């Protein structure tokens, strides 16, 4: 369309009407905020009422100094140990479940890309390579989507109290998280060395061992160690619902208003998680 150059129509100011989608999103957002406000019965002023503040102050005062008597430490060192064990075994279980699932759930291992160009062209093969992929991705999503505490509740109900339900719950829910991240890492691997391996006549399993695994190792290790650290905190919390470890004692102390004990135990858990984080960093530097 030619721009009219006659002076009479020159300099008409352009009008910015705003983007329609931005307006729509904005309205949607406002609606969500208002709706949520009403649904959650938010009354911000309550927070600053004298009773609320008094309660908080009582808590703050009861917190210090954190319990550190010998008797106290003697009662809790075993549960703390148990928490560490739950975290370790839970993460291990998660890797044992999640890693094989991730091999199935990675499209480049199963069917995608030029590595599979020479495969038999038959509907059976097509389904046979895609079905495990779809199913394993679905399974991983379900395992991830259910919060780990819900898993803990279920396992406690099924297996009774103790460390076992905690380990199972951690193992099952973390396997979903680990499996998905592992599969994503596998799919992002540089395919060129794999093609070279395939050209020597290597089978798919050998290609996984020599091509995919060595390249995924740093990221694999990094994320797994991070998850181990999270597992420590999670296993402490699982105790709240009876799945073993220090969580049970923390909950008890808080319900009995023994805040100084609760704070002590929480501090210990966080000290442990910091130690695990350092250990993890050291491990990563040595092995990678």
């Amino acid at each position, binding site marked *: 369309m030619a721009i009219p150059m006659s002076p009479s129509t020159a300099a008409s100011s352009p009008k910015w009407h705003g983007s329609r989608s931005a307006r729509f999103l904005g309205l949607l957002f406002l609606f969500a905020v208002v709706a949520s406000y009403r649904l959650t019965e938010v009354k911000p002023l309550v927070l600053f009422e004298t009773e609320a503040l008094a309660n908080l102050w009582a808590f703050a005062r009861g917190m210090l100094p954190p319990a550190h008597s010998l008797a106290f430490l003697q009662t809790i060192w075993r549960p703390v140990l148990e928490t560490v064990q739950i975290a370790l075994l839970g993460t291990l279980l998660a890797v044992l479940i999640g890693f094989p699932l991730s091999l199935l759930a990675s499209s480049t291992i199963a069917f995608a890309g030029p590595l599979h160009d*020479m495969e038999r062209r038959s509907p059976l093969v097509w389904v046979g390579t895609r079905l495990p992929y779809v199913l394993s991705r679905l399974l991983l999503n379900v395992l991830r989507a259910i919060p780990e505490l819900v898993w803990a509740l279920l396992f406690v109900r099924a297996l009774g109290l103790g460390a076992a339900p905690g380990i199972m719950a951690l193992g099952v829910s973390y396997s979903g998280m680990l499996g998905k991240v592992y599969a994503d890492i596998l799919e*992002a691997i540089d*395919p060129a060395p794999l093609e070279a*391996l395939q*050209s020597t006549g290597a089978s798919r399993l*050998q290609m996984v061992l020599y*091509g995919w695994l060595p*390249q995924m190792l740093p990221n694999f290790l990094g994320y797994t160690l991070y998850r181990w650290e999270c597992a420590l905190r999670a296993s402490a919390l699982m105790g709240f619902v009876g799945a073993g470890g220090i969580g049970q004692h923390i909950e008890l102390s808080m319900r009995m208003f023994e805040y100084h004990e609760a704070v002590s135990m929480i501090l210990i858990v966080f000290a442990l998680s910091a130690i695990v984080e350092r250990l993890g960093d050291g491990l990563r530097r040595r092995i990678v």
Partner: protein
Amino acid sequence: MYTLKGVSKTYANGFTALRDLDLHIAVGERVAFIGSSGAGKTTLFRLLNCTLRPTAGTLTVDNVDSTKLHGRHLRQMRRNIGTIYQQHNLVPRLRVMHNVLAGHLGRWSAARAFLSLLHPLELDSAAAALQRVGLADRIFQRTDQLSGGEQQRVAIARVLLQDPSIILADEPVASLDLALAENIVRLLIDLAEQQQKTLLVSLHNVRLALEYFPRIVALQHGRPVFDGKPQGLSTATMQRLFTDTPAHQRPEDTLYGHSHVPIDCRFLT
């Protein structure tokens, strides 16, 4: 050894790399393939080493139709063809010995392959191969610590171990300086001659091709425009080959379709 009749290859994105190609290669021949990028050399080599299948036409290796090969037979055929790539395509994090020993994978079971990663099996064979390419002292180093030329020699060592009867080298010296390139081409030819292997090399350096190979095949737009002795290649044909380059894609982009970004877990808190 190889008979290609009417072979075409079109990729999923519509790009046709090879058109109606006819070719015959006898056992023990030494052939150099020349042509500009995008002429179809890489695609041809990936058809020859049974990585890709032709979209039309037939390709027979050793009197067997490549598309009829599956599973174990396909692996056996691949084992008998050794490929060297321009980007050497080694696994960077593995030590040199494992990358070289990967030449045995066509022969080894999965269990042996796994055990070898823990403690290398048949280490002497790897050491001997590295000795032939002059890298015996690098056997325990991590592969990504070697220079480009050294890694290419490691790739050759792997092919030595594989001991195939056909060696395909797709632009093996493109990223190396001239002196090194000539050394490697001579190395490949020596190895092929000593054991009467069929050697097919694609080169962008026409001088090397003309000097060392008794047969030249020139590709342009996915078809051969010359096939014969180096003396028969006229300057006019050569000029035509390297001008008039179509809008092409890098073979790697066509094959893999996208640039892959490594996952960074740092932000998952």
